[in-house]
């Protein structure tokens, strides 16, 4: 579904991605894990067209979308749930959701959009209860749910999630991850970027590990969870003393 080859992404003179290749198949949950500043968000922003300074190849369903502008990429069926939610915090929950459907907004599509609203309210009942509330007054977990719901309003085939667990209590994180599993069951393919590697690998089919802009490991989640280097670096089980270095 998504196929990336040799992606190089730049922030000014800084090269944040150094030839990244990866792929996501239809129906998969694939995760990208890595430390702060390793290039995770740059990768998602490159896929969704927000980072325009890039080289390489991004194919979506066989189509080269590397140089497409963000709005075109949303139309193709890729939607990003950005890091830190990026809600329109002074607008209501409902308005945020409707803005998610902006690119296909027309009178004719009213019924369709209402159907989609029903769907997101079914997945996130709490948003229905609070649809008139101002987004900025929601709790962190609710805001994250709203951000995901807003993305779903564009009917994505591929949903890109940037650190959905950030700053949330473990119980809420659990809820968010359960929603991700539900979405996959309903046919959405997921590419999940996370610092919470343990959680991400628990729900993902496959994963990639990124380090200073380079992929250093790839494999099925089970394999990555069995890799001691990954455990030490990303799963927080630090070794207290060096036993024997080569």
């Amino acid at each position: 579904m998504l196929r990336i080859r040799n992606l190089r992404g730049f922030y000014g003179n800084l090269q944040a991605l150094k030839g990244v290749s990866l792929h996501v198949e239809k129906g998969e949950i694939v995760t990208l894990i890595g430390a702060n500043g390793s290039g995770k968000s740059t990768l998602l922003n490159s896929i969704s067209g927000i980072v325009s300074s890039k080289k390489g190849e991004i194919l979506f369903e066989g189509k080269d979308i590397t140089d497409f502008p963000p709005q075109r990429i949303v139309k193709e069926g890729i939607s990003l749930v950005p890091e830190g939610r990026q809600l329109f915090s002074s607008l209501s929950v409902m308005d945020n959701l409707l803005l998610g459907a902006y690119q296909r907004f027309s009178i004719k599509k009213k019924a369709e959009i209402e159907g989609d609203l029903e769907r997101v309210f079914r997945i996130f009942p709490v948003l229905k209860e609070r649809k008139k509330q101002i987004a900025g007054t929601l709790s962190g977990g609710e805001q994250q749910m709203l951000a995901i719901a807003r993305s779903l309003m564009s009917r994505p085939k591929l949903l890109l999630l940037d650190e959905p667990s950030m700053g949330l209590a473990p119980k809420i994180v659990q809820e968010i991850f359960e929603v991700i599993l539900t979405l996959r069951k309903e046919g959405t393919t997921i590419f999940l970027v996370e610092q919470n590697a343990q959680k991400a690998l628990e729900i993902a089919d496959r994963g990639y590990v990124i380090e200073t802009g380079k992929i250093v490991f790839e494999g099925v989640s089970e394999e990555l969870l069995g890799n001691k280097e990954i455990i030490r670096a990303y799963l927080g089980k630090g070794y207290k003393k060096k036993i024997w270095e080569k």
Partner: protein
Amino acid sequence: MSFESLQFEKFSRDRLEQLQLERLQATLNRAYRSVAFYQKAFDEMGIIPEDIDSLSKLSKLPFTSRQTLVDNYPYGMFAVPLREVVRLHCTTGPKGQPIVIGYTKNDIDHWAQISARVLKAAGVEKEDVVQICLDYGLFGEGLGFHYGAELIGASVIPGSDGDPKRQLLIMRDYRSTILLSNPSFALKLLAAMKESKIGLASLQLRGIIFTGEPFSEETRVRVEEELQVKVINSYSPLELPGPKVATECEKRCGLHIFEDQFIPEIVNPQTGEVLPPGEEGELVITTVAKEAFPLIRYRTGDLTSLDFSPCECGRNLIRMQNPKGRTDDMIVVNGVGFFPAQIRQILVQIEGAEPNFRLIIDREGTQDVVELMVEVSESIFFDEMKKFHELKENIEEAIHQTLGINVRVKLVEKRSLSTAEKPVIDKRFK
């Protein structure tokens, strides 16, 4: 342990190449970061891993060889700290120097999966009783297949590679259906059958997987006829412990390379230049899924060619021909590989023996036999018979101890062997 790697065999070329590129790049990033040898070799050529943006650019990278592994002994080629290594196997270099190879937990899992794929290709099912007559020791080939057979769920007999007569009894009594062995061990079993009068009727054997050494088609035909079984061949670089690189399928038209794990290239053995598809040359492999011991452009020394056409079995993996020969002078006798230079090394250490020798290898019945003609210094030659015999036994013992092969030593006068002739005469396969 899951068995997900089986799916790769049916991947389209396009999908497989995407996987290979991703895995190659991750391997290069890790090797460059963690192995001083690769970092230095890449730096000297002015290459960074990022430059390899397609599979064809692999040819820009430097080669490695058995000598590289010797030079970086013991842990120089390891890409992970030792605490992440769960297994060590060892082998020898071109002159008998030691080589050690490490495996992480995931490497061992991959090894098991690849072994299981070899067994699957040979038609092994969980109902089978698999007798593994391979080394379970330092080289560990038996262990690899052991895990693979268990992954399939077969009943496994860790027979190891000793005493063919006993193995034959086990084969009869435990009703083994599949045998894993070196071709030479299978021939020993045939001999043991004749000797012990255990008839074919009392055996349940239906398939054999050959590994470990080159063999002639005649050997295959003979084993198949005498045991009424199907023989499937598998391949990995000689004397390199670890997973198989390729296996035959039931169609037996070349060996499918496990391309999700290894990227093959064929190069001109003299110039190192990559040859066009289909041409014969030296097989070079790059591992793309190894964690502890990544090998980049490893020169196998085996001469073969690649076949890109689809196989009737449905696997989309490239096939290689059964290697036709070697680029170096390695000799394989009864499944044990060694180099002539090693014999020289042994001889110089024995008093009375001269380092000039001639090795004559032939086949007697089922066994390779090796005659070693050794020149002796004059002082010994004309001395008493007892000393003469002692020297002969000393040499035989020393060679058995060091190389693990049995030779018949024949002592000859000094300067009686012409140095102009080749030191090795191989009369087998002729």
